[in-house]
């Protein structure tokens, strides 16, 4: 039974969620992190800032995003499946919530340039979009491997006026893009804001990014109350989301952490930091981390560039430790199946990332039988169509006699 007394709190000056979090950054960046924390604290209680952000979220990003009941798939699975449609936001994912907030904050702080890391490219596209909107310059770091498998998003970022720089060291994926973005920020901290894309990194990012995505959970709570209220307490039995760094998951969890709803994060089997990692420190905070016997960070391996990350946001590590959320793992093969199932059954092509959460639902449908399940559909699948075309063509070729 979920413990409804757990709260997602302000982690204080030290930025701690239990043992997790903190601010492990080069000395050069400490004053910038402190300045950012102070600026966010001030802005977040400033009605003028909140109004400007809310207006942008409504008039520019298209919020509130709808709650969609999946009638056909629910019937097939013997459960009641609801989707929080973050895929319908401008730029195609939940990432825009965080980015609009950080870009407004950066402007308020007098910064003129945004730097960001991206995996699948969704956060990079969102950052490039916000930079275009607010007239800022933008540099996005992306692993060479990801640049290859997400060519469309690379082009999108360039269309939006951003410079995309390849991260060519290490595993050449999201982890290395974060390294490069941090190195950039060390050199440019005077005029540049690091627009970090998930609930990870040094304090205040895990907390600030959670607060900026809280809108997902707040909306979903009200929408669930309206839809389900007549039949009971208006709360779904299970709330689930995919977890790489964990921003969309923490966003939706934040709306239900104080309810009886069970919270389930779904990690890729090849990048399951909570499921298979041990606590460690990388990219600014202490959290569960995939690492070898000497503390070298391991390379994650996932079909989804957005979840191809060996760490996880520190608040997820804490939620796992206190038992308020649990973290499941799914394989690439299960994800490919889920991607097709939602497309065919509901006419919604999901991004590969939220397809992870659906893959868990498909596998756990016996356990979930008769229950109401809310899935945060964090992004749309347009960016993945090219990659899936190749994957499915290969499969078809293998199946032929």
């Amino acid at each position, binding site marked *: 039974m979920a413990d409804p007394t757990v709260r997602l709190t302000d982690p204080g000056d*030290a930025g701690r969620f239990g043992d997790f979090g*903190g*601010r*492990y*950054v*080069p*000395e*050069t*960046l*400490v*004053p*910038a992190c402190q300045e950012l924390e102070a600026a966010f604290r001030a802005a977040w209680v400033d009605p003028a800032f909140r109004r400007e952000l809310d207006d942008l979220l409504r008039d520019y990003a298209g919020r509130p995003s709808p709650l969609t009941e999946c009638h056909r798939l629910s019937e097939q699975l013997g459960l009641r499946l609801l989707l929080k449609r973050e895929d319908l936001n401008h730029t195609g994912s939940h990432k825009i919530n965080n980015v609009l907030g950080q870009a407004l904050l950066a402007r308020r702080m007098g910064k003129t340039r945004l730097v960001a890391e991206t995996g699948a490219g969704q956060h990079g596209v969102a950052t490039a979009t916000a930079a275009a909107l607010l007239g800022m310059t933008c540099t996005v770091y992306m692993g060479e491997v990801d640049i290859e498998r997400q060519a469309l998003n690379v082009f999108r970022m360039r269309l939006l006026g951003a410079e995309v720089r390849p991260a060519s*060291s*290490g595993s050449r994926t999201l*982890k*290395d893009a974060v*390294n490069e973005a*941090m*190195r950039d920020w*060390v*050199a*440019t*901290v*005077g005029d540049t804001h690091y627009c970090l894309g998930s609930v990870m990194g040094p304090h205040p990012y895990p907390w600030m990014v959670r607060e900026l995505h809280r809108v997902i959970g707040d909306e979903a709570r009200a929408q669930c109350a309206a839809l389900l209220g007549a039949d009971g307490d208006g709360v779904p039995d299970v709330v689930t989301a995919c977890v790489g760094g964990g921003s969309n998951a923490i966003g939706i969890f934040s709306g239900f952490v104080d309810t009886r709803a069970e919270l389930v994060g779904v990690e890729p089997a090849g990048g399951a930091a909570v499921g298979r990692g041990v606590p*460690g*420190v*990388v*990219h*600014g905070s*202490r959290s569960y*981390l995939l*690492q070898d016997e*000497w*503390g*070298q*960070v391991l390379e994650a391996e996932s079909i989804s560039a957005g979840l191809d990350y060996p760490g996880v946001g520190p608040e997820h590590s804490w939620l796992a430790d206190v038992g308020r959320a649990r973290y499941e793992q799914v394989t690439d093969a299960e994800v490919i199946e889920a991607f097709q199932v939602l497309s065919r059954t509901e006419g919604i092509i999901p991004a590969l990332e939220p397809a992870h959460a659906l893959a868990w639902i498909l596998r756990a449908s016996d356990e979930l039988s008769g229950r109401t399940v809310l899935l945060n559909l964090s992004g749309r699948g347009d960016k993945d169509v090219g990659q899936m075309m190749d994957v499915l063509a290969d499969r078809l070729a293998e199946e032929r006699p």
Partner: protein
Amino acid sequence: MTLTPTAPEAVGAQLEAHLRSRRAAGRKLLVPYVTGGYGDDWVDVVRAVADAGADAVEVGVPFSDPVMDGPTIQRASELALAAGATPGSILDQLHGSDAGVPLAVMTYYNIADHWGLERFASELAGAGVCAAILPDVPLEEVGPWTAAADAAAVETVLLAAPTAPDARLERICARARGFVYAVGLLGVTGARSALAATATEIAGRCKAVTDRPVLVGVGVSDAAQARQACTVADGVVIGSALVDRLLAGEGPDGAARFVAEVRAALDAG
């Protein structure tokens, strides 16, 4: 202006005592950096640069995600890891390397944290390493490490960056042991064509609040730049410019030639 008191250290303090005494003798301090395990001859390089006039040697224990390092040291770290170097193997090889000058280890926090802070500190001491530099552990997070390091008589060198306000610099200089590592520019490690104006500025700001040795590192790339930095600083750390030569295959002899050249420039004052 407040000066950090010159409290004599109870135990350990081999690096700081050594650097202070050399400084007192009128010498500018030179600390070359070598990535441990980058190639088979890396321990020979440590000995060679010590013989060529280094006052101490900084040895990098490679980490998979070195966020404070630029392309040169990233490359050296990747080579070392690919060759199977581990924190254990690096310290084993340092043990008994008999370099003749104090050794400091530079690595990232997760290496120490994963081994266990007390264990890591005692392994350093056991290998004859006097000091540690953990560039991703700022003042606010350094407490657990300094507790372990102090107990093992390992000195913790702290970085002082140009972005720090004066009050913060004072606290950094007060907590640092061994020397104060003044970060010469806004950026990561790597050779640059000219010394940044920030190099002498930050050295001067540190010198104003501490009498510990203040060495400028990051972006000190050749003999002329080292000499320029030392118009204000007590000395320099030279990393990427040396590692560039090692990656080019110059080996212990080339490393010794380069360090001797910098030494001569500093001595010519």
